[in-house]
């Protein structure tokens, strides 16, 4: 069992084979593919649940590989050995008309069953282990509710109650404590979605009218990619999210910031306003154009951390105030909650109280930069086809945003750290 379960052996083999193939094809650029270390790799994982699942995968992989080698060699041998090589061969007397051999048959059936038992045992074990938080972790487990909507995720922290406002609510970025088992209740409000953070755990579906859950644990602080894994309509492909695992201190700090109401920016005289950086945004976005910068790609965790602190030097209080007014006058607040700033919104739309402190917007699709924010709020439907922000209220409500409006709204949203 030890031998089979050693993930690194096979991984090394696979990688070596792939690297060779890669050289041959001269396409070495996509390193993540050849090393199987993509952001959503199920091979290069972190956390006990994903590891248990990977272990089962390796067992199946090894067992079937061995069978394939054996059966394949016999098959290859038979084909090569008994091939008719010449025309004369083809017309030779037919071979002996044998009909089979029960002993061989039974032996092979027995061998197959044996091979399956080897797979079945770890499978059963892992089914039990991955199902729910292990008994010894129950007491310390952290509870989160995840609810899926077309096409974004809502995260609630029942243990972090805010006076008068219920539990702490966040959208599209799930922040969890490192080293603690996290028990996530999965709900869906419209159609079926699925919660999948490959590096931490396999997926479990979020099904309307069904109380599913999953557990996972991150072993190192970091930034993990997640994606909806059940087809849920037009924008299923771009229904993503992130999980950020923080050490205890950082986590507490984050909770404290998040439970506070939305940040206020003091008014400053017009003359002091730094203007340039929000002046105008690109508007010639292509459909499906990528929404992140290479720097962010290189170190998203750092990017996330950087978002936590207000960027006082670049803030324009007047513009922010204007944005805040627009948020109300353009009826954004009828959907979105900004706790402490205005009364309105509902739980069925992303909470924007601390939207400025997220590393991504639009359900993990775009990096949270002013440029991308502007892109999103000017044309959400071009970013996410069928988008509900567009379909049920935005453009049909005749929300028309001039470039100046957009700039002001962006400034305001950016200030919500």
């Amino acid at each position, binding site marked *: 069992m030890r031998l089979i379960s050693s993930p690194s052996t096979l991984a090394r083999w696979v990688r070596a084979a792939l690297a060779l193939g890669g050289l041959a094809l001269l396409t070495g650029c996509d390193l993540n593919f050849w090393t199987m270390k993509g952001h959503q790799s199920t091979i290069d994982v972190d956390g006990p649940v994903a590891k248990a699942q990977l272990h089962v995968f390796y067992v199946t992989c090894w067992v079937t590989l061995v069978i394939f080698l054996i059966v394949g060699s016999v098959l290859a041998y038979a084909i090569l050995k008994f091939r008719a090589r010449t025309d004369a061969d083809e017309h030779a007397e037919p071979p002996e008309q044998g009909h089979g051999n029960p002993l061989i048959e039974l032996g092979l059936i027995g061998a197959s*069953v044996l091979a399956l038992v080897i797979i079945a045992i770890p499978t059963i074990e892992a089914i039990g282990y991955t199902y729910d938080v292990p008994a010894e972790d129950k007491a310390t487990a952290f509870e989160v509710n995840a609810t899926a909507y077309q096409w974004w995720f809502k995260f609630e922290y029942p243990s972090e109650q805010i006076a008068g406002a219920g539990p702490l609510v966040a959208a599209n970025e799930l922040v969890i404590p490192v080293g603690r088992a996290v028990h996530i209740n999965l709900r869906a409000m419209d159609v079926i979605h699925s919660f999948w953070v490959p590096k931490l755990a396999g997926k479990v579906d979020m*099904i309307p009218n069904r109380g599913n859950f999953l557990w996972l644990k991150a072993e190192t602080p970091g930034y993990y990619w997640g994606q909806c894994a059940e087809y849920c309509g037009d924008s299923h492909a771009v229904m993503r999210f992130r999980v950020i695992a923080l050490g205890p201190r950082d986590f507490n700090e984050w909770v404290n910031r998040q439970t506070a109401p939305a940040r206020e920016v003091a008014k400053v005289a017009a003359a002091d306003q730094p203007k340039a950086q929000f002046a105008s945004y690109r508007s010639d976005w292509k459909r499906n154009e990528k929404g992140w910068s290479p720097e962010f790609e290189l170190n998203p965790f750092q990017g996330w951390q950087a978002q936590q602190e207000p960027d006082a030097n670049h803030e324009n209080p007047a513009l922010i105030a204007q944005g805040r007014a627009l948020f109300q006058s353009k009826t954004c607040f009828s959907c979105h909650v900004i706790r402490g700033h205005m009364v309105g919104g509902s739980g069925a739309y992303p909470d924007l109280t601390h939207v400025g402190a997220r590393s991504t917007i639009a359900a993990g699709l775009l990096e949270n930069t002013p440029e991308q924010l502007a892109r999103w709020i000017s044309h959400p439907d071009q970013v996410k086809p069928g988008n509900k922000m567009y379909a049920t209220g935005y453009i049909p409500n005749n929300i028309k945003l001039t470039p100046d409006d957009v700039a002001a709204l962006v400034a305001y949203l950016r200030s919500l750290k």
Partner: protein
Amino acid sequence: MDATVKTHFIGKEDKAPAKPSFVLWRPSAKTGLMSWLTTVDHKKIGFLYGSFALFFFLVGGVEALLIRLQLMHPNNTLLTAQQYNTLFTMHGTTMIFLAVMPLGAAFFNFIMPLQIGARDVAFPRLNAFSLWTFVAGAIILNIGWFLPDGAPDAGWFGYAPLTSKLYNPTHATDFWILGLQLLGVASIAAALNFIVTIINLRAPGMTMMRLPVFTWMTLITSFLIILSFPAITIALVEVMFDRQFGTNFFEVSNGGMPILWQHLFWIFGHPEVYILILPAMGIVSEILPTFSRKPLFGYPIVVFSGASIGFLGFTVWSHHMFTTGMGTVATAAFSLATMAIAVPTGVKIFNWIGTLWGGHLKMRTPMMFALGFIWMFMIGGFSGVMHAAAPADAQQQDSYFVIAHFHYVLIGGSIFALLAGIHYWFPLVIGRQVSDFWGKLSFWVIFVGFNVTFFPMHFLGLNGMPRRTFTYDGNMGWNTANYIATIGALILGVGIGLYFAVMIYTFFKGEKANRDHWDGRTLEWSLPNPPPEYNYRVIPTIHARDAYWYEKHHREEIAQENAVHAQEDEAHGGIHMPYQSIYPLVASCGALLGGFGACYHTLVVALAGGLVLLSGIYLWAMEGAEGYHIHLDAEGRIVEDPHAKH
């Protein structure tokens, strides 16, 4: 069931052909459009099934190529999300219901009656009805391409509540529901017919354990069809009611449970995948012995394992639902049951190898495809076993690993075997001989293209790429594999194109094939090519499993026997042939009309369609299953035109 002692005459007796009334007009055209529309000949029906299926295979293939082109690069903009979603839905639905299933039905129709020594299926007109209802279903399913509502886009398993009116308000989903419903009716009707035919129309001496394996697999597949389709029929009725009458089957606000759809769908869906593979296994089990010049190794076990696969197929449906939170017991149970299927499947593989062992392998094109099948199906089966391990599947479900798995079993499995079958029976069906060089060339291009396309998808899946995504970002490590896969699909496209080109060329210009082109073992090869309308001049008497092989080695004995039986037949008034009929087509047109009415929620049209359907069936019953007799001269020419009588 001692068929040996039965009469040699299996046609029906009837009175002198009555003069048909002017209302119950019986078409008798033997050429031209009318002959095809009113045919009840299982060979013509099989040919039509095959032609439609191949057409839809190309349609599904073009859809697949568009999918691949969109995924060639990250953030590609060739297709919109809506178009992409429509394409994969229609690709999956088309390939499964309109390409592979009817292609299987084509072989069932054409080959199976020949293999059991019958002159037709048990209910020739029902057979025509199946064909035309299949066409009606195909039309409804695809009509959305030409209408403003668009084609269906809820995925090939249409999970509720995405198919509800709230989330899919256009009629596209209605096309999907009604299209599948009609296809289900067609499939069940056809399957019932095949079951009765195989059980009841076997030539004397053709005991069950002498049936060719392909016929056995036809029988098992037919059982799977009649037992699995009702589940999806009910499921479809439920969504249809939800959409049209506001019922609550999957309406959460009134307590509906969307998960129920998944169960009902997969109770059908899993047996369905064996409906797709068992005919393929049957074909391979015919080709390997022929080209090894040796009987199938362990025939009884191969048959029995086919039956166990069919039976176990009904016990594993929830392996498509490992991620739906079923609880540990159910997950473990379905996991183990799924693994168990590897045993009978493995038995087949072992026996195929056993068949090759010690043979004289003639490496002709059908054999190449059949061997390709074994290799590719084995790989697909192994990734299936990886899925069966539920914890591993939690990472694989709905990722490209699944896509890789099922394309290996569906293309490397079903399609390879069906392509092999086309090559194998081409000389019999068409009477012409396919060039071995071009055939092999197309095989190699397809083989390479297929592997280049789908092998990298395993790694894409393991690297976390979810399926059904119209776009992906370039930073996930998926670019190279997607690029390779697209190149592979293009190669595959060239291969398929080549294959079709060769076939079309041969169809028109190919060299005439001689009788018993491959030195065959089963009964159909005893026929001239293409087989005459009445199939067997004399219903053969079967003495051994590989009936024709036996016949070839006992020529005199058989000739004597046949002479006696020919006389008996003549004494009965010649060879009985069923009349053609227009009413199956009429009934199917009613189904088409009714389907449209239901799609557009217009009761009047639906009722009108129902009335046409009913009238068609009534007239069909009233005209009766009559037929005429033909008489042959020594050369097998028809000496007396039966239609001259009236």
